[in-house]
Structures are given as structure tokens and as C-alpha cells.
């Protein structure tokens, strides 16, 4: 899919970052307002898909030389580790912990192990969608 539209390409470069940061925001905000790892991951991949569509897949592969299968594996491991961790401190599998901390710059914030699990979800979603899109897109 070779296009040569300068305006689209220029806009896409900016829009990519907007979507990407929005996806991070959505992901982080997920615990209190709509969002979360699943949507965040999808949004991130849609940002990359936008780039793939405006440029072409080999260019993007060059710019973002990422092996997305590692994302999937890493995400699954992270999720599993968060779920399994409580067993080592004598709590049932999948117990989550949370507390409030005073962090520099950010002030009082709550920190969650559920967030780590959600990060796993995020990584898996990005990994899988991008793996699928890339393999199908590259298939000649």
C-alpha cells in the first residue's frame, strides 16, 4: 500500500503521538475512570496501525524495530507473576494489594498491584494485535 500523500503523512506523525499519549492516559486512568489495559493497548496499536497505513509496513518496521511476540510473552509473564506473587507471602493466588503513598512531585497517590496486572494485559494486547497485523500485512 504505497501512498505518497504528504499532508496525510505529516498529520499522521503528529496524530500518532496524540493517540499514543492518550492511550497511556486512558491506561493509567483506568482504575478510576473509563479505560484500562485492554483499551489502552488497543489504542496504542491503533496509533501504530495509523502509521502503517499512511506509510507502509516495511518503513514502520524500520522505524519501530520491535519484536511484538516479546511483548506478548512479557505481558503474560508479568500478569502471571502478579497473580502468583501473593502465594509466596501466604495469601491466596491473585490477591491484590494497594496503599497510598506520598510521592515526590505527584503528591499523595495510590499504588496498586492490580496496575501491574493491567500492564500485563496492556502488553499482551499490543503484542498480539501488532503481531497479527504485521504478519498479515507482510504476507506477500
Amino acid at each position, binding site marked *: *500500500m504505497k501512498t505518497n500523500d504528504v499532508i496525510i503523512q505529516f498529520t499522521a506523525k503528529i496524530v500518532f503521538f496524540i493517540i499514543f499519549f492518550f492511550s497511556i492516559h*486512558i491506561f493509567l486512568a*483506568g*482504575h*478510576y*475512570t*473509563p*479505560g*484500562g*489495559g*485492554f*483499551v489502552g493497548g*488497543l*489504542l496504542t*496499536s*491503533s496509533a501504530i*496501525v495509523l502509521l*502503517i*497505513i499512511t506509510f507502509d509496513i516495511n518503513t514502520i518496521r524500520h522505524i519501530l524495530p520491535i519484536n511484538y*511476540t516479546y511483548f*506478548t*510473552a512479557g*505481558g*503474560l509473564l508479568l*500478569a*502471571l507473576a502478579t*497473580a502468583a506473587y501473593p*502465594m509466596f507471602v*501466604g495469601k*491466596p*493466588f*491473585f490477591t*491484590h494489594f*494497594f496503599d497510598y503513598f506520598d510521592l515526590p512531585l505527584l503528591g499523595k497517590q*495510590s499504588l*496498586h498491584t*492490580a*496496575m501491574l*496486572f*493491567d500492564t*500485563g*494485559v496492556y502488553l*499482551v*494486547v499490543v*503484542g*498480539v*494485535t501488532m*503481531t*497479527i*497485523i504485521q*504478519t*498479515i*500485512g507482510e*504476507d*506477500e
Partner: protein
Amino acid sequence: MLQVLYIFIPMLVAIFVPLLYKRMKHIHTGWFVLAVPATLAIIYATYIAQVAKGEVFTAELPWIPSLDISVISYLDGLSLLFSLLITGIGSLVVLYSIFYLDKHKEKLHNFYVYLLLFMSAMLGVVQSDHLITLYFFWELTSISSFLLIGYWYTRDASRLGALKSMMITVGGGLMMLGGFVLLYLMGGTFSIRELITIAPNLVEHPFFTWSLILLLLGAFTKSAQFPFYIWLPDAMEAPTPVSAYLHSATMVKAGIYLVARFTPIFAASELWVWLVTGIGILTLFWGSFFAIKQTDLKGILAFSTVSQLGLIMSLLGASAVAFHTNSSVDTIKYAAFAAIFHLINHATFKGSLFMIAGIVDHETGTRDIRKLGGLMSIMPISFTVAAIGSLSMAGLPPFNGFLSKEMFLTAMLALQKFEFFGFDTWGALFPIVAWVASIFTFIYSFYFVAKTFTGNYKPEQLPHQPHEAPIGMLISPIILAVFVIAIFFVPNFIGDMFVKPAVQAIQPFLYTAPQDVDIHVAAWHGHITPELLMTIGIVIIGVLLFVALPKWQGLYQYLPQAFTLNNAYDKMMQGLDTGLNRLSQRYMTESMRHYLLYMFSGITVIVIGSLFIKDAFRIAWQEASPIRPYEIIIVVVLVIGTAIVILAKSRLTAIIGLGAVGYTVALFFVIFNAPDLALTQLVIETISVALFLMAFYHLPRMGKREERMKFQLHRAIISITVGIMVTLVALSAHSQKLIPSISKYYEETVYSLAGGGNIVNVILVDYRGFDTLFEITVLGIAGMGILAMIKLRMNRKEKTHENK
């Protein structure tokens, strides 16, 4: 807690084995692995003194508390003995494997990962007090043994042997699970200890016999009893260290362990006594008789293992008889003692014999007994060890096998003295069969050692020029051979330390403490006993038959292959294979439309049927909210979009129509206050449309067949029924709420319990985190599947290009 973690140590170390293998290529991975069983053996050895006094150790690790499932490690005499065998023999086997498996040629990381996995599983089996975790570990031994047997997976025989062992042992394990569930239903607890204490109440229960039979099926398949033994000879395709470890010393003894562990529960049953003793003695005879037919060294040992397992099994059956007598016949108490004692002895001599078979194979390149012979002068150390092991197996002094064989005969002679269960008539068969089987045992023991090490040396038939094995390979069998002799001279030390605590665990109805087991082992009882006379008879007839072996060995050829159990198994598997293939060819038409047709008709029949049966058609309009005008507009758009998808002449139109449907549904979510769903739906829709467009060029053009598709009545009926079904389910679900909605609970607890504000997200990551974990796993598998499918196809394409 710590005691439970010991079980998992090998499994945890297994994770690092591939790393060690890759990073430290110049050191044999086995040296690192060796530390695991050696350390564990030392740890378990520290328990010996206290357990011998009658103490038991328990530790619990909660696993799924809400379902009352936890890993409970229970160390009493029986489980400690098995744990020591697993780690002790395990250390020797790993040491042996370091020299047996070439670090440059073999896939060592695979081998040791499987072996460590197996070690954990086996420790779990013998220490679990919880039925469900016991089952979990039990099947894990089957799976790891499958992997080990199929280690040389490029060989057909390895794969077939692995499959066969798994089919039989996992099948048996499933039966056993059924037995466990029945036990739970009867006793109301998963704990074996608690079941033993309430055992007298279970006997009258209607499930009792069923659970007994199912449990025994598990034990018999695992311990290769007749007629399930057929997998064990095929399992000999595994590397020899595996055969020495799994198929003589540990895994096959899991069935023995199970029978021993559950004897206190089932001993009251006549069926138990008859089944365990009868099948055991039949297996003893069958295995020993067919061992002489074998020409493969490991084949002989496999059949000999089958027969020795039968011996131990029959003794355990006899030990249950003691439940019914008040020690009126004094000698029956020997049965449990003899079973455990022989178990230890068997592990020592059979382990060393397997290792010798491996050495012969390694040094000469063949295990075929017809090609071997006269190796005595070339491999003197191997010959000595083999002779010690074989003579012990044959039951001759001064080796440990003699002692346990004597006690076995004592127990069998005692059986006929009982005046219940028909022992006074049929019981006479037991000593006779045992005696005949012992003669065959004697013959195959001599057959094994004589055909390999004496007779004519035939160097022209051997693939390699034979020489004595390297010393490292000999260490393990020599240590085991030393045990074989040492146990003969200090049997009572072994008896006090290991056997008596185990016997007390098997027969708690006779003994309250290990010290109460009043058995003294003696090689010479001070007078001529019937057992001794039987042994002399075994030796005389055995020697005569062995000398005459060439004259009667041809008898085995008369048994037609068509009547063997192996043939029956093969026929059954073939029949299943072709039959099921034919069945799937019927409905696997490679047409997506047909598959959807099956699925949707199935779903509608099930759902509408159950709605009908449960009388669940309910439509309550009064609670429904009013329909607003713009909702009607969205529905109209939705219908139009769907119509476009169906009627579209080109694929591009269909894709755009589908996208429109998705976005309108997202709009609905927005209107109904589901921002999370709306967000997800929108992004998914965007990505899937992009994906469609990306794959667009690769899709085949819509054929003329599709364009001119005729109206088909049955398809229309099915699609309309599906629509009606979904509507009915939605309306019925809305109209009848017996239980108040759960959302109230979430609203109240989501902040206090999970510290979050967004209910949807908290449900996803916390309340129902398990669902999400499995969902992302499925997602990951799907991604890998697509990757593999497309990449593999591309590789094949490249290859065909190369061929051109």
C-alpha cells in the same frame, strides 16, 4: 510450609536448566542438576530418626482455599521412604546420566527439565495428603514420563512408546480421579488422613465398591499390572537413565504407593483383598514367564519389573487380610513388611541392572542378547555388578533379594490358612503360583547375566569394539550393588529405620507405633523352614530348566501374535483412528458456511430447548424503558448496515457495511452509559476495519458462485431462529430477576476492597482477574497461532521456490 516447598525445588530449578545449558556449554548440565536430588536426599535423611520413632510431619500451603484445595505435605514412614528413594536413586541416576548422555550430541536441557519436573511430581504424589493435589501430581508424573520416553522424538518407536504409556496411565489416572471424587462424596473430606480415621463408616456406603475399583484401575495402570503392563516394555525406548529411574525405582511404584496408602481405608473389603492379591500374583507369573521370551536386555528387565511389581502388589493385598484377623495367624503380618522390604531391595538391584544394561548398550552398541556374549573378561566390573544384581533378583544368599523372597513365600504360605473369603480352598493356589513364578524369575535372572557375559564372544556381530565403561558410569551401579550386599548383612537396621515406620502407616489397625512391629529378619532361622525348602526347590528346578533352555524356549514361538494384548491395543487404536477419521471427514467439508450451520443449529436447539423445558419465556413490558426517537434512528442504521453486509456485491462494500454496524453499536453503548464498552468497541472496530483492508489484497476475489448465490430456505430458517433466540433470551433475562442484581455489591465494595473507582476495570483486573488472565492467554495463543500459520506457509513457499 518449608516442607511443602521442598517438593517444588526441582521444578523451580528446572526453569534455570536451559539457561545453564546455553551459557555453560563446556560443563555437563547434569553436574548442576545433581545438586538438587543430592541436597533433597540429605534434607529428607534428617527426618529419618524422628520418623522411625513414629513421629509424622505435616505442612500446608493453601492453593485454592475457597475450594478447600491445598498442597499438604504429609511425611510419615511410608512417604519418607518413597521420598528417600526418589531423591537417593535420583542422585545416582543423574550421576550416571552425566556419563551416559553426551553433552555435545544430546539435547540435555530438555532431558533435565523433564527429569526435574518428574522429580517434583513424584515427591508430590508420595507426600500429598490432599486427594486433588495427589491427582494433580499423579498426572504430572504421566506427562513428564511421556516427555522422557519420547526424548529421542525422531524415532518412531519412542513416540509410539510414549503415546502408549500416556494413553494407559493417564486413562487410569482419570479413573482414579473418579474414585477420589466418590471418596469425597462418602467421607466429606479430601484429606487421606481424615478418610482413614472415618474408614469404618465408609464400608457400607453404596459408592464404596465403585471407588475401590476406580482407584485400583489407577494403581494398576501406573504400576503396570496385568493386563495394563503392555506400556512398560515399550517405555524402554527412553534413555537408560530414565528406565532405571522411572520404570524401576519410582514412577511404576506410584501404584504400589497408592495401594499401600489406601489399604487402611479399603482393607475391610473382600474385593480389595482378592483383586490386589489376585492381579498381583497373576502379574508376577505373567511377567516372569514372558521375560524369558525377550531378546532385548532392557526388555527382559522390563518384564522382570512387571513381575516384581506384581509380587509387591500381591503382598500388599495379603497385608489387608490382617485387618480381618486378630493376629490369629501370626505369619500374615509378614506381608506388609515383606512388601516394603522387597520394594527397597528391588529399587537397589533393578536400578543397578538397568544401569548395566545401559553400559552394555553404550559400549557394544547393541542390547540384543543374541549378539552379545563372552563379555566377562572384557568388562569384569560390569559383570560383577550384574551378577550381584541378578543373583539378588533370583533370590539367592548373600544378597538382599533372598531375604525378601523368603518373607514373600512365608506370607503366601500363610494365606491358605484363613477360613474366610474362600482362602481355605483357593488360597492353596497362591503359594503354588508364587513358587512357579519364582522358578521363572530364577531362570530369567540367570538368562540375563549368562547370555551377556558368558558363552561365546562374537565381536563380529557388535557395532562397537567393546571395552570396560568409564569409571564415572560405573560409580552408580557399584554403589547400588554395595547396598544389595550390605542390606543382606544388616537387614534389621533397614527394617527398624525404614520398613517398620512404613508398615505402621499401611497397617494402623495392627500397630500404633513403628516399635510395635515385632518382626525380626533373619537369613537363617535355626531350622529348616518350608520357605527354605521352596527356595532349594527353585534353585534345583531353575538350574535344570536353564540348562535345558534352548530345548523349550521355542515354545514361545507357538503363541500367535494375534492373541497378544499388544495386538489388541494396536487394533483398538487403529480402529479408533480410522473410525474417527471417517467420522470427521463426514462433517469437515472445509466450508465455513457448513461449520457455522452446525454451530448455530446446535446452539439454537440447546438454548430454545432449555428455555422451553424450564418454562422461561417471560416478557415483562412494565419494567421496560421508553424507546426514544434517536434510538429508532440508530436501529434503522444498524439494520441498513447489516443488509449491506449481506447484499454487498463487492467485498469492499461489505467491509464498510460491517464497520458501520460496529460503530452504531458503539453509539448504543454511549447512549446507555457504558463508556468503557463504547471506547473498546470503537477502537476494535477501527483496528479490525484496518486489518480487513490490509488483508484485502490477499483475499480471493468474490467468485461468481457467491454473487449468484441462490436463496436457500434452510439457511434462512436457521438465521431467523438465531435472531429470535437471542431476542428471547435477552427479553427473558430482563423480565425475570430472582436474585437482586450484583452491581449493588460492586458499587459498595469496589473502593473499600479494591481501592478503585471504575467498576468495570476493577472487575477485570481484581474481582474476576482469573478470567482476564485466561483471556489474555487465549489472545496470546491466537496471536502465536496466526504468526505460526502465516510464517510456516511462507517458509514452505520459499522452499518450493528453491526447488524450482
